[in-house]
C-alpha cells in the first residue's frame, strides 16, 4: 500500500484559536493542533489517540477543512486544499466524509432516515431520478445492516447503534475515499460497539476506503488501525505501525496510556505495573516550555524544559518526540499482557 501515492498529505498543520478576554486583555491563543504531519494512503486506517483536549477532534476537522487551519498544508491527491477554492473544495467533499460521536445528535430529528441518507445525493447529484435515488438509499441501508423497510422512520425511533449505522450509510452513499470517524463508538454499549467496529472494517475492506479513526479508547483503536498516532496538547508524541506501537511503545506518554487501560483480567490487573502520571493536562493557552509532556512525565530532566524534542526515527516508520526515548522503554517496565 505504501508504494502508491498518498491520498492525503498533511504537513506542519496548525490550528490556533484566539481566546477572547476583556477589551484590554492580552491577546492569547489556544494551540489546539500545533505542527502535525502525516501521510494517509488509500485503504489505510490511521488511528489518532489522546486524552480530552489533546486536539484529536480539531485535527480531524481541520484535515477536512471544516475548521480553517492557521498554518500548514493539507494535500488531497496532489491538490493543496488551500488553493482549491470554495468551488473546488465543495467538489472534493464528495470524496471525504465524517461520522460523529453522538449518533442521534448528528441526525436531523425532523427528517426521515431515507431523506437523511439521501441528502449528500441531493447536494451533489441533484438531477438523479427519484427511483434511482431510492434504490441507492435502500442499498446503502442494507449494506450497513438496516432494513430498507425502515426508510420512512425518524431518528428517534432508532437506538444509538442504529443511528450510528444511519450516519455511516449517509457517509458512504457518495462512495468517498476517506471517512474521518470522530469517536464513533464511544457513546455505544460494548455489545453494540463491536457491531459497529466490524461494520466499519467490512466496509473499508470492500471499498478500499481510508479511515482516520479518532478515539480515546486504545483497545478500540488497536482493532481497527494500521498505524497509530498519539497526540498530546496538539503535538505528535509518537506515530508508528499498529503492532510496533503497542509492542514497543517508546514515548513515556504512550507507555503510561497503555498501562492505564483497564484490562478485563483480574489477575493481570492486580499485579500489573502502572505508570502513574502526576497532575492534570496543562492549559493549552500556556503550554509548558520545551516538551509539552514534561510536567507529567516520570522521566523529565532539565533538557526537557529547555528544548522541544524533535520527532526522531526510532525504527522504520516509527517516530517519537522524546529526548529520552532510547532509555524510556527500559526505565518504565513493560506493561502489556503477554500477547
Amino acid at each position: 500500500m505504501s508504494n502508491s501515492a498518498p491520498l492525503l498529505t498533511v504537513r506542519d498543520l496548525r490550528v490556533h484559536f484566539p481566546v477572547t478576554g476583556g477589551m484590554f486583555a492580552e491577546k492569547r491563543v489556544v494551540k489546539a493542533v500545533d505542527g502535525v504531519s502525516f501521510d494517509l494512503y488509500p485503504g489505510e486506517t490511521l488511528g489518532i489517540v489522546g486524552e480530552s483536549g489533546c486536539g484529536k477532534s480539531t485535527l480531524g476537522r481541520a484535515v477536512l477543512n471544516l475548521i480553517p487551519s492557521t498554518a500548514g498544508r493539507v494535500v488531497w491527491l496532489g491538490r493543496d486544499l488551500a488553493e482549491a477554492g470554495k468551488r473546488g473544495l465543495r467538489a472534493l467533499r464528495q470524496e471525504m466524509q465524517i461520522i460523529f460521536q453522538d449518533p442521534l445528535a448528528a441526525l436531523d430529528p425532523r427528517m426521515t432516515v431515507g431523506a437523511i441518507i439521501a441528502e449528500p445525493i441531493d447536494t451533489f447529484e441533484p438531477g438523479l431520478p427519484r427511483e434511482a435515488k431510492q434504490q441507492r438509499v435502500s442499498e446503502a441501508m442494507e449494506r450497513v445492516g438496516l432494513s430498507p423497510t425502515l426508510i420512512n422512520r425518524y431518528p428517534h425511533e432508532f437506538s444509538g447503534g442504529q443511528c450510528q449505522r444511519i450516519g455511516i450509510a449517509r457517509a458512504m452513499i457518495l462512495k468517498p475515499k476517506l471517512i474521518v470517524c470522530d469517536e464513533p463508538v464511544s457513546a455505544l454499549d460494548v455489545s453494540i460497539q463491536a457491531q459497529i467496529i466490524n461494520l466499519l472494517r467490512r466496509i473499508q475492506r470492500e471499498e478500499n476506503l481510508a479511515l482516520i479513526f479518532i478515539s480515546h479508547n486504545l483497545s478500540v483503536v488497536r482493532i481497527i488501525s494500521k498505524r497509530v498516532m498519539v497526540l498530546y496538547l496538539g503535538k505528535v508524541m509518537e506515530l508508528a505501525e499498529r503492532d510496533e506501537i503497542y509492542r514497543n511503545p517508546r514515548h513515556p506518554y504512550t507507555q503510561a496510556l497503555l498501562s492505564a487501560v483497564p484490562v478485563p483480567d483480574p489477575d493481570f490487573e492486580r499485579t500489573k505495573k502502572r505508570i502513574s502520571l502526576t497532575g492534570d493536562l496543562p492549559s493549552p493557552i500556556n503550554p509548558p516550555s520545551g516538551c509539552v509532556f514534561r510536567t507529567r512525565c516520570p522521566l523529565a530532566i532539565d533538557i526537557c524544559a529547555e528544548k522541544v524534542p524533535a520527532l526522531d526515527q526510532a525504527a522504520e516508520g516509527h517516530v517519537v518526540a522524546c529526548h529520552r526515548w532510547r532509555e524510556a522503554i527500559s526505565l518504565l517496565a513493560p506493561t502489556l499482557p503477554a500477547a
Partner: protein
Amino acid sequence: MGVSVSVQPHWQVAGAAPLLSVDSLETRFTTPDGVVNAVNGVSFSIATGETIGIVGESGSGKSQVLMSIMGLLPQNGSSTGSVKFNGRELLGLPRDELNKIRGTRMAMIFQDPMTALNPYLTIGRQLTEVLTFHQNINEAMAREQAREILEQVHIPEPAKRLNMYPHELSGGMRQRVMIAMGMLCRPDLLIADEPTTALDVTIQAEILNLLAEQQAATGTSIILVTHDLGVVAQLCDRILVMYGGRIVEQGNARDIFYDPQHPYTKALLLSMPRLDDDPSADLPTIGGQPPNLARLPPGCAFAPRCPYVFDACLAAVPPLREIAPDRRKACLLDHLD
C-alpha cells in the same frame, strides 16, 4: 439439559451479618408510555470491607438499583422489596430519617462531578456543610477536617482549593472532591455510580487507585457500578452482572472473568476489544438490541439475543440459582460450550 434449581434467600457471609442486604427489590417508573420495570427482583448483600461491582449495559437497571437503595428515585418511581442497612429497613423510611444515614453511614459518588457539585458554592463550603449538618461541630474544625480529607485524596494545595469553585477545577480534581465528600463522615458504605466514566484513562487509573487506597485505610464497603469490565476487574471482589433489570450472574471476580457461566456474560466479555487479542479477527458480537424495559418478554430477557436459546427460555424467567458455592446464574443451561 438437566435443570437443577436450588434457591437460597440471598448471598451471605458466613458468620457475619451483612452490612447491606437487598431482597427482592423491584423498582417501577410510571411514564406516559406505560410502566417501566427498571429493577425486577434483585437480591444481594454486601459484607463489611467488601467491594462488589455491578456491571451491565445501558438500561440494565444497574443505576436504578443504587438509586433505590439511596432513596433517590424521582417522583414517578417506586420500589418494593427490602433494603436493610445494618439490619434497618430503608425502604419507606421518612426523608429526615433517611438523611441521617445518607452522607454519614452511606455516601454516593456520581458519574459527572460537575453536575453533582453545586456551582454556586466553594469546595470548602460544600465539604464543611456535610460535617456541620451531620456532626454538630463548629466551622473552624469542619474546615480543618475538610482540608485534611482533600489532602488524603491527593489534591495539591488543599487549603487553597477550599476557596475555589467547582468550575475552577479539572474533571479529575472534581471527582477527587466528590470522593473526599463521600469519605468525609467515614461511611460504612460508599456507592459509586460510574465514577470514572467521564474521565480520561490516565485520570481514571488514579481515581481507581484512590478508591482502593481509601478502602484499605478505612475498611469501607464499596458498591461500584460500571459498564466497563476492565474497571471491575481491578477493584472488585465480587461481581453482579445485570440484564433487563435482573441479576443474570454473580460470583467472585476471577470466576466471572475466567469462567463466565451465563451466555450474556460470556458474550459481553468476548465482544470487548482487548489489548492482547488478535486484531485481524472480527470481534464477536451480540446480535440484536437490549430489551425494552416497558415491554419485557415473559421469559429470559436475553433469550432474543442468546445463541443457546431453546423453548423453555421463552416460557418463564429462569431463576437465579446456585451453581457452585457463592456462584449463581439465571440460565436454564447447566454448561456452556
